[in-house]
């Protein structure tokens, strides 16, 4: 019998095939576009052939760079990931501390919440010159850009999450004789950590964005540096694999964070599945 479309579910196999379809279509569209352009101009750099892409990948990933002797892709990834990790770590720490303080203590909330709210609306790119002067041009300013880009949102998010904890729990802890510090440390903090990971996952995309922006402005290595450098001679054969690689990295980091959260905070995810 014919069912409504909202009641028809694909089987596992069909779902997998369907899920791959858009990727295949994109690939085909690319291959077609590339061929058309290359037929018009064999030197065209905009949509290189798959073979050129493969060659470029091999070159950047496996052959030592002529000038520096490094394996370029890995060196760039290492530089970028270090910056990213530092930025994410600092932002998380800030968000955790501020989120807990504003979420739990009404006076701190009154003082900081409006400021954080406004701060989260400031476009960080626009105040880059000040960042440079204050934090120098080195690694620090790149990390600071990431932090400035994502921390205010994370702070607001965590404040919200802390305030969403059922007030019953806080009352209960008080009736058990806990003081504010103990409630923070033993009741609120542990429950905030998985929510912090959630927030971090949401902010991975923006963090990569700010990383790339920072590296585009002043750097000696890094994924964003490379993309903006080779953009000078329209080397899409390098840019495209880098974009795919960044996407993959973001994807894997997201998966890893989810895995960590499930492993470290099983009670959080059990609860979620129930709800």
């Amino acid at each position, binding site marked *: 019998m014919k069912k409504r479309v909202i009641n028809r579910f694909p089987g596992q196999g069909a779902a997998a095939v369907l899920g791959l379809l858009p990727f295949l279509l994109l690939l085909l569209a690319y291959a077609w576009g590339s061929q058309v352009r290359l037929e018009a101009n064999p030197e065209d750099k905009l949509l290189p052939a798959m073979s050129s892409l493969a060659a470029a990948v091999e070159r950047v990933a496996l052959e030592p760079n002529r000038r520096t002797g490094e394996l370029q892709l890995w060196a760039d990834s290492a530089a970028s990931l270090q910056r990213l990790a530092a930025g994410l770590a600092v932002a998380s720490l800030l968000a955790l501390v501020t989120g807990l303080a504003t979420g739990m203590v009404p006076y701190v909330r009154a003082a900081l919440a409006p400021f954080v709210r406004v701060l989260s609306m400031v476009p960080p790119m626009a105040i880059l010159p000040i960042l440079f002067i204050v934090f120098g041009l080195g690694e620090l300013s790149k990390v600071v850009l990431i932090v400035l880009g994502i921390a205010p949102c994370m702070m607001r998010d965590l404040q919200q999450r802390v305030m969403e904890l059922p007030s*019953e729990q806080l009352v209960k802890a008080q009736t058990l004789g806990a003081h504010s510090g103990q409630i923070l440390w033993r009741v609120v903090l542990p429950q905030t950590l998985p929510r912090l990971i959630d927030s971090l996952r949401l902010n991975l995309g923006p963090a990569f964005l700010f990383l790339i922006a920072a590296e585009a402005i002043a750097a000696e290595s890094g994924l964003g540096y490379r993309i903006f450098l080779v953009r000078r001679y329209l080397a899409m054969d390098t840019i495209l694999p880098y974009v795919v690689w960044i996407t993959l990295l973001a994807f894997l980091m997201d998966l890893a964070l989810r895995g960590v959260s499930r492993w470290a905070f099983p009670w959080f995810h059990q609860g979620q599945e129930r709800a």
Partner: protein
Amino acid sequence: MGALLEVKQVWKEYGSSIVLEKLNLTVKEGEFCTIVGTSGCGKTTFLRMLLGQEGPSRGTLLLDGKPMPAEPGPDRGIVFQRYSVFPHMSVLDNVTFGLEVTRSRLLGRLFGGARRKAREEAAAMLAQVGLGHALERYPSELSGGMQQRLAIAQALIKKPRILLLDEPFGALDPGIRADMHALVLKLWKESGLTIFMITHDLKEGFKLGTRLLVFDKPRLDAQAPNRYGATITYDLAIGRDEPALLDEIQGAVTETSRFIHDSR
């Protein structure tokens, strides 16, 4: 022995709406007061005042002859209908927590022998409520009834003088509820606690309490439903089955209930 709790001419208002008015009550140590009343008539608000979360707008609330503390404290335990236990702690940790926070003021954590001892105490408490076999589970792995047992154990480990229960069994199915009744009665008899328990179920109130408090609005004004607050309209010592009285109360409460909900 004097009164444990004295409520004298207490009013509670939120802005212009009056929730409770002219509340008077004296409760002695060891009583088991069940509280019934239609939804929204201020039962939870009253419990919050006993907890110290809210102060009265007018009137006085005395605990042991002294003004009620302005904050929750370990002398008054509580069990809510939901969210009473800590989801990130195992069953055993949930109960040990209450011991740790007073025995280790700085960290809220015990180590070594002190820890072992606290855990043993907690395990003994859990055995009493029938959770001896589930010490290492997380609350999300427990059924609703087991969670409420855990919440009770958690409260009792602090040996509070007063135990406040806000519809503790409202979400449980009737069979399990009967078991919980037996448990609460047992614990109350053994410990000499003073209990205030809110319930929606008048029969439950009759069955468990030594004293039944009915919160109801004595005056209803269809134009301004929040013009008059609720107060205690029946205050009965119980111990016998009184079907006629039960029906009478049920009738009165239902009428208020209909009135409030239709005039919203």
